[in-house]
């Protein structure tokens, strides 16, 4: 499938927990131009919040590195269908040794912080596609695709 990028933004934020709310609000405000439902916006905010929190809690556990957040509005060229919101959250932190294990619901490497181990489960169930690329010591890139059944147009 071929996509055209209709609009996009990119921002860099330090891995401070105050920025969790900022990051999810930014993506939510960007997505608002597609006139999404309240439910879809909630899905997007929760998924972004999980991805950014992972960077803060895990990737940069011992330092405050930078998180790159990219969002794009993609339109499928082949036919006149609903647009897709593309979200990419990238860090240059410690990386994930075992991605499949990290994605297992309730698995967490962070017991003392009361983390539920549901971050990837939320991302996976609230978006249409989740892709995780990681290299130990180099960082992690999480990419999510969310189809929006817009009511406008």
């Amino acid at each position, binding site marked *: 499938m071929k996509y055209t990028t209709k609009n996009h933004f990119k921002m860099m934020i330090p891995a401070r*927990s*105050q920025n*969790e*709310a900022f990051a*999810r609000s930014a993506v939510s405000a960007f997505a608002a131009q597609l006139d999404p439902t*309240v*439910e879809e916006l*909630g*899905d997007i*905010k*929760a998924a972004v*919040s*999980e991805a950014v*929190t992972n960077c*803060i*809690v895990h990737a940069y556990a011992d330092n405050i590195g930078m998180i790159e957040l990219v969002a794009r509005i993609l339109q499928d060229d082949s036919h006149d269908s609903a647009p897709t919101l593309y979200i990419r959250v990238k860090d240059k932190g410690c990386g994930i040794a075992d991605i499949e294990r990290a994605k297992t619901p309730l698995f967490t490497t962070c017991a003392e*912080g*009361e*983390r*539920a181990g*549901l*971050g990837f*489960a*939320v991302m996976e*169930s*609230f978006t249409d596609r989740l892709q995780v690329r990681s290299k130990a010591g180099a960082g992690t890139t999480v990419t999510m695709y969310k189809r929006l059944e817009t009511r406008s147009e």
Partner: protein
Amino acid sequence: MVEIVNSGEQVTAGIVGDIDHHTASGIRTEIDAVLENTTPQLLILDFGGVKFMDSSGIGLILGRQRVLQSFGGRLFIKNATGHAEKIVKLAGLSGLMIGGGKG
């Protein structure tokens, strides 16, 4: 922010605002202070005032459950709607939800 109603036997903690990794530790501290002082038989976590919740809310619920179990107390969830409800269900904690539907 947490609005606490404490009758001794029962504590109701009404969480107001967002529950994420950033806010969870403050909410946790406020509730645990009451739990430790009162050791109630029952804690009701009221999500009616929650504007946003991610999986940090599940950590908060499970963590309080652990505190309560240490002195034989129990916990229930009230007024979880929208995404709070969706995430509670995803976590398999539907059994903790009580109360008259969406209210």
